[in-house]
């Protein structure tokens, strides 16, 4: 390890970290925004879900680098290509959790809500979705952590991220740079995960209460 390399390249490391964070988190958030309506429909109409899930599973099976390359003709060597590809991956983990989260709301709770005079939209917004939050967040956490790690692959098509440190370090046979990249990705992923756990705790106070 050449420790002195780190402060000398502080500005570069900070910039790459921010770019990696952006590329990792934004696709998960877009995935969440898409998964919510699709998941709500899938939870309501049972026939809608199996074909949807099959489609996303096939997309999930495509190697990420291959997906980047497939998107290049349309979007070029840009952030957009990486964000689209990672959004598709995030859908594969978030959508099933939205559906599972909505489906695990006990039938008795839904029936009681209806019997008390909730309309379908109000019931969804104030009873079903809040109760699905823990499961949805479990999917979101996986998507964010995986996204931060996968974003580094974008470097292979020239989209800047902490992946730069791997490639540059490899070419220059300079392990310090590679180690810094690995550690930062892990730290970034853990930090985001902790933030999500904290948000979930705030959103679901009932799960923390003890008997």
């Amino acid at each position: 390890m050449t420790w002195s390399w780190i402060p000398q390249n502080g500005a570069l490391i900070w910039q790459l970290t921010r770019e990696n964070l952006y590329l990792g988190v934004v696709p998960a958030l877009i995935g969440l925004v898409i998964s919510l309506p699709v998941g709500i429909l899938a939870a309501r109409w049972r026939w809608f879900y199996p074909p949807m899930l099959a489609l996303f599973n096939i997309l999930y099976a495509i190697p990420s680098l291959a997906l980047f390359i497939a998107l290049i003709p349309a979007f070029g060597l840009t952030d957009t290509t990486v964000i689209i590809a990672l959004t598709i991956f995030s859908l594969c983990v978030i959508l099933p959790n939205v559906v599972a989260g909505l489906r695990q709301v006990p039938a008795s709770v839904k029936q009681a809500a209806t019997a008390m005079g909730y309309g379908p939209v109000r019931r969804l917004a104030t009873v079903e979705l809040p109760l699905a939050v823990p499961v949805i967040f479990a999917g979101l956490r996986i998507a964010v952590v995986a996204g931060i790690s996968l974003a580094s692959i974008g470097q292979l098509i020239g989209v800047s991220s902490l992946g730069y440190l791997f490639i540059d370090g490899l070419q220059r046979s300079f392990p310090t740079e590679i180690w810094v990249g690995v550690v930062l990705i892990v730290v970034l992923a853990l930090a985001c995960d902790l933030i999500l756990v904290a948000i979930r705790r705030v959103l679901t106070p009932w799960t923390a209460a003890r008997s």
Partner: protein
Amino acid sequence: MITFEAVTKRYPDGTVAVDDLSLVVPDGQIVVLVGPSGCGKTTSLRMINRLIDPSEGKILLDGTDIRTRPPAQLRRGIGYVIQQTGLFPHRTIEDNIATVPVLNGVGRGQARARARELISQVGLDENLARRYPHQLSGGQQQRVGVARALAADPPVLLMDEPFSAVDPVVRASLQDQLLSLQAELHKTIVMVTHDIEEAIKLGDTVALFHPHGTLAQVAPPQQLLAAPADDYVAGFVGFDRGIRRLSFVPTGGLQLSPAPAVPADTTVTQARAAGHPWIVVTDAASGAPRGWIETARLEAVSGETLLGQAGTEPLGRSFVAGTDSLRAALDAAVLSPAGQAVAVDEAGRVVGTASFDQLRAAIQAETAAEQAAAELRQAEPSP
């Protein structure tokens, strides 16, 4: 008042859940729908708040066809309690109870204040207001379910096996709580249960279903026990319906004999002199019965011994004359080593005893009266 007019529920696969049901639920009464599983009792209940719509016939609420009212508005005027409680896991107890008032536009603060009143009214500690449902026991959750159903003060309450998932001791206390609430609130209650005991205990009227969605008998519980319409009803009601019917017969008409009661601070010599074959030993201060003693056994005891030290046989139980039922009196006689039921007054003092002969006379008098009433009912059939 809730009126079922020739209501049938048929599912697309041809299953008939409810078959041509006509039934009236009068205001302020508890009507219990009871029957084996699959008899259509729950379907009938859920048609009242339109969770299920009938295929044929109609249901009137205070004379108005319920289909003319928007479902959500209709439902906010009908309390609903279910076995699984259906409490919202993500809301505190007070917010669960405040649900319908808040839906109706009542401010949250006011709705919570009302919720806290209800928490005590259903027999819970107000400290539970800020807890979540999973932090409560099953019995407590069920009380919250009742409180939530009552929150907007709806005239009608639907209860679907509300007490089936709790243990017998808790169930009995929930049932008693419901009866005392009902004595105060006079709601129109339709309850579903598979437990005939519960139906008999709670119902002003019991509607007993056949297995496939038709009614076998609709009658007050004592009549169901005394005069089952057919073998099916008699079988469902149970083998000891003759004795259970006595729960509804007061002991006011029961002849009592003067009790062979002797205070515990009497000496054995004096007690023997009284000449009773059995003696009820009473507490010297309160007059409450403590147990039985057979005079013949006192021969072996020193004459100076106080009766209280002579060793009594357990009383079994006593009954409150005029308040308790004939069933309680009969039970007391069966449990008594002397074969006599000890009657006490409201203060617990011994007032007399009843022998099996006296009990039999009271039962026969009641049966004769019931038969006369049944003949009267047949002479002028109800509308």
